[in-house]
């Protein structure tokens, strides 16, 4: 629980005691989260831990039942996606970000087309597209080809850079590296670091612990809709994070890790050693 108190400057986005209930299901219970400028916060948790619900509450797709959201120190109400965008919160959804049949420029400016005398100003949009992609060092063969012909990594970088057009302060990335190859994942992680260098607060949702540890400054763990620890991105072992995600040190992942690690390392954790002893042969 080291990372939470490390920063003294006020957070750009702060969630305090956010709860959300869907019928009989308590999706979120008193969740806290803080994101500072120039910081990558990884949001991790098992399936159904409430990551998506939390992101939807921040991006305005759903509204929280209880709790407060503060943006730059002011309490705000986010009732619909437009509210979040107006505040400066941009969300990049995994598969839903791009229209395959439109070209890169068309996608970048979808929903905020630049017009002159009521007619689309393609020249201006293309110029600003190139400018944006250049400042982010993104290599795309042409801004005039349909995104269907781009690679998965290129598509993801286009989707992320697209979110920057609204000049946001917080960017939420939902599983940006899922279904990407090694090379393409590296491209996307590079871009995440450039976002941080530009002073943006980044919320990164990921199942990939290698990615999380590669770029995250802090890791916020959700479990069963509750906070289950904040960790420093670099000073924490993967096992510690996974323990927090699964809720116990006694679970299939740690047992397996203990078995495969050298005996000395397994003994260092008394609980893991004890349980791996009692459940031997599983």
């Amino acid at each position, binding site marked *: 629980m080291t990372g939470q108190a490390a920063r003294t400057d006020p957070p750009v986005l702060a969630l305090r005691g956010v709860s959300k209930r869907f019928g009989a299901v308590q999706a979120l219970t008193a969740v806290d989260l803080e994101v500072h400028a120039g910081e990558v916060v990884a949001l991790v948790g098992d399936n159904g831990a409430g990551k998506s619900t939390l992101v939807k509450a921040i991006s305005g797709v759903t509204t929280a039942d209880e709790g407060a959201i503060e943006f730059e120190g002011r309490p705000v109400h986010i009732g619909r*996606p*437009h509210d979040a*965008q107006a505040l400066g919160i941009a*969300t990049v*959804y995994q598969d*839903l*970000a*791009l*229209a*395959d*049949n*439109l070209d890169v420029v*068309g996608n970048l400016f*979808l*929903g*905020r*087309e630049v*017009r002159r005398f*009521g*007619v*689309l100003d393609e020249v201006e949009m293309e110029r600003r597209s190139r400018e944006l992609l250049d400042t982010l060092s993104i290599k795309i063969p042409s801004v005039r080809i*349909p995104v269907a012909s781009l690679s998965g990594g290129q598509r993801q970088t286009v989707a992320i850079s697209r979110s920057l057009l609204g000049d946001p302060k917080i960017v939420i990335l939902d599983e940006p590296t899922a279904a990407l190859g090694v090379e393409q994942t590296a491209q996307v992680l590079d871009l995440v670091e450039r976002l941080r260098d530009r002073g943006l607060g980044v919320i990164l949702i990921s199942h990939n612990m290698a990615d999380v540890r590669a770029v995250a400054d802090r890791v916020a763990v959700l479990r069963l809709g509750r906070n289950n620890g904040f960790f420093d991105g670099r000073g924490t072992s993967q096992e510690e994070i996974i323990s927090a995600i699964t809720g116990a040190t006694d679970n299939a992942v740690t047992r397996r890790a203990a078995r495969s690690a050298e005996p000395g390392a397994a003994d260092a954790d008394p609980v893991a050693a004890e349980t791996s002893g009692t459940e031997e042969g599983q």
Partner: protein
Amino acid sequence: MTGDATTATAEGPTRLVGWRRAVSLLGSLQGYIGLVLVLAFGIVTRGGTFLSQSNLTNAVGAFASRGILAVGETLVILTAGIDLSVGSMLGLASMVSAMLLVNQNLPPWVILPACMLCGAVMGLANGIGTTWLRIQPFVMTLATLSVFRGIDRQLSDNVSVGTQVAGADGKLTGNADSFQLFGTPGHNLFTGVVGAGVYYPVLAFVVVCVVGQLALSQTRFGRHVYAVGGNEAAARLSGVNTDRVKIAVFTLCGLLAGFAGPIDAAYSASADPLAGTSYELDAIAAAVIGGASLAGGRGSIVGTFVGALILTLLDNVLGLNAVSDNLQLIIKGCIVVVAVVLQRPDLLRGAADFVRRVARRGAPASTGRSS
């Protein structure tokens, strides 16, 4: 019609270079092959007659009302929807126009906007059904196909209404006379000064196509139409009001059907209660031949214009060659299949690969290309 021409390398046996060039050329000209073939067929078989101004004007004019429907249909198809009710909307609009002329003796410049409004209301109903009530477009417009036709027949009591209204002196009334300008054959678009010699159906069709194409390619609305068809969820998350776009395309489709109604009535000199039956199939066929994908997001008004020309000129050429009606139906159906197959870039790429493989097998001693 994107330039998905396959990149044929210049090396290899000369006999096959031509082949590969031909395949890549086919790739870039996909949309126009059909039109060229039909024109060539017409010129070869019935040269002078086919190319005469009056023949071409009549051919396009006869199809104009369906062509205008096809433009509206293209808008709906681009958003991954479909409108089966365009024929019924056209029928009802043509009946309304004839009744306004005969019963109310209104001038054409009042009748036309009234019919367009009538069509727009019907299209709006389609749009609301598919968005707010979340009925699939196919089902919703199948239902309204029946409803609008029923209203049409109820309104007319199943009797067709002639538009050539004679006054007390036995001549056409002034309003009926000017109403005829909407569609009576005999006026020729290509001769005489504008106003006297303009053949209205052709002019209307061309203008609708030009306006439609500009709206699709140059405006925010057009961009949103493509986005909704390409990835509706992405469009919605980008701040596009997808429901409003869908309602708009259905309403525009209805409006264009209302616009085509009086043309159809004037062309036939009467509004038949069954006018426009099965026109929706011609409209969809024109859009599909023109490169529109029913999955949405792909197609253009220019393509639909070409598709409509192919359909109408094919009709015309087959008619001039005295091909039987039954055979014409079969040929038209086959044309749709061929057009759709030709417009798949991957198919032509596959054909190019095949040619390349054959080339390699045919000349194993040539350069050792590895790709």
